[in-house]
């Protein structure tokens, strides 16, 4: 494996991403909305709405509070119900939503890199180089996974600052991130980035345009939606142990997807579909 070639492919793909506004604009916008706009709304809006108009189901708070780890429960318990809901949302229920960032970014860059290269008719020249199939695949995967994970971690840091700042009037100290967020960011985030990308590679081998590949691979966000719904409904509560387990399961799924992707990604199959 020639790492110089792999880095060259990754660097070239990243340069192309930043040269194409339709790719980099969503890469920047999505994290900004998720880590700044939404938490500020969640923390500030309840303070502007009268408590008697909040319509919070009677059993919701006791059920959610009962599942919280002790440290977090101590922070939230003394607050009025509306603020309790706000802090629960930003600290716990909202957590899986941030997984949309690595999935979406990896899928977007992956679709631009694999299907987009076919669409722009630049793939053929690349296939005539001495770079091996593996080097081409790993270079392109690196170009998608590295920014997806890096931007997710930057977003997470920004989210922590925003949450602490916006909740300062209520809590009066730095209380976020909670324990669950660390495995979520360090263990699950890279796993979902690889999953989003792996699915994009598989889809890109069947379609010929960036838009098709991006739209289809965007379906992997269903996982995030399912996790958010499970959390809110109380069916699943992501503590540290469950988050570690979730990450392990996703890594196993990744191994299967990437193995299939490696088998799918060959010069001869790519060139005959052009």
């Amino acid at each position, binding site marked *: 494996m020639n790492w110089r070639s792999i880095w060259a492919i990754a660097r070239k793909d990243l340069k192309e991403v930043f040269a194409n506004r339709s790719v980099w604009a969503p890469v920047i916008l999505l994290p900004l909305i998720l880590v700044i706009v939404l938490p500020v709304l969640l923390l500030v809006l309840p303070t502007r709405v009268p408590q008697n108009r909040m319509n919070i189901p009677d059993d919701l708070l006791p059920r959610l509070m009962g599942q919280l780890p002790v440290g977090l429960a101590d922070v939230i318990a003394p607050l009025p119900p509306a603020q309790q809901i706000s802090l629960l949302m930003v600290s716990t229920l909202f957590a899986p939503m941030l997984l949309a960032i690595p999935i979406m970014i990896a899928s977007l860059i992956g679709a631009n890199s694999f299907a987009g290269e076919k669409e722009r008719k630049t793939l053929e*020249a690349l296939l005539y180089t*001495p770079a091996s199939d593996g080097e081409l695949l790993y270079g392109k995967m690196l170009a998608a996974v590295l920014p997806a994970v890096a931007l997710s971690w930057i977003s997470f840091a920004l989210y922590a600052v925003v949450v602490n700042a916006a909740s300062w009037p209520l809590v009066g100290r730095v209380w976020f991130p909670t324990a669950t967020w660390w495995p979520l960011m360090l263990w699950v985030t890279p796993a979902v980035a690889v999953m989003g990308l792996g699915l994009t590679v598989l889809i890109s081998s069947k379609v010929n345009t960036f838009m098709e590949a991006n739209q289809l691979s965007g379906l992997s966000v269903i996982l995030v939606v399912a996790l958010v719904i499970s959390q809110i409904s109380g069916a699943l509560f992501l503590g540290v142990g469950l988050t570690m387990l979730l990450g392990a399961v996703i890594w196993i799924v990744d191994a299967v997807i990437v193995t299939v992707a490696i088998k799918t990604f060959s010069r001869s199959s790519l060139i*005959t579909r052009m």
Partner: protein
Amino acid sequence: MPPSLPLTEPAITAKGLRRSFDGRLAVDGISLDVKAGEVFGILGPNGSGKTTTVRLLNGLITPDAGEMRVLGLDPVTQGDQVRRRTGVLTESPSLNEGLSVYDNLEFYGTLYGIASHDLPGRIKRVLERMGLDSRMRDKAGGLSKGMKQRLAIARAILHEPPVLFLDEPTSGLDPEAAEQINALILDLKRQGHTVFLCTHRLTEAERVCDRFAFFSQGRILAAGTKADLERRVDDALRVELEFDGAIPSALPGERDGQILRIAVRARAEIADMVEAAVQSGGRIVRVSPLTPSLEAIYFTLQHRSEAPHELA
């Protein structure tokens, strides 16, 4: 300067190459030898198997049957080594248009294994040669069509490969840009590159190629030098006779003032025909066998291939 092979060793050989896609034969038993240092023209219409042959010879796809060697290497098992020694101009320039001219070449130079310290100098030299050095920092997408083609050729020769595959290098270019590309091909030949030139522009091919192979429906209709190919269509020769005075009415052929053009079935018939004209009272001042153009030869052979009984 590309490393050269001994003159006796062909740069490219193929024997009985066959490849089909979804049951349709794209290449049907092709055999050819390309000598080191020559410009070999693969001539034929779109869909005749030219591009598939280039892909096979570079190890991008594997043949269903047949054998091939490029610089003595087997593209099926040594594809990466073959591609390290070949440069390919694809039918569309295949440039990364969002990147600068320099970045395009730097990327491909790295993939072709050119050392980092050597790369800037190589890029500068190749861009000067292509007349693109003043556009080095411009986006490739902003270049004219002819410039894009020259940049794509720069990419193909950056690693100084001994064998070049050029797939329709003048397609879609204006006459001036096409002329520049043809001059470049001759220049590459002078430098010792072996050039495998796929084109459907027969007039241009006639000027730059040493030998030719006519492709049609995945098969080779005929191959050789222009003289070899002319002999294949001897029976389609035409002779031009210029008379001093009237052309005898008994003579057949196409008349144009004092000039008569007659079709003959073989060169040996020319003398008989002149004798007949003189006996008919004609005063001949010039006899010129008309050499058929490559285009005329191609269409004659193509026509015969569509009528199998004529090939026998």
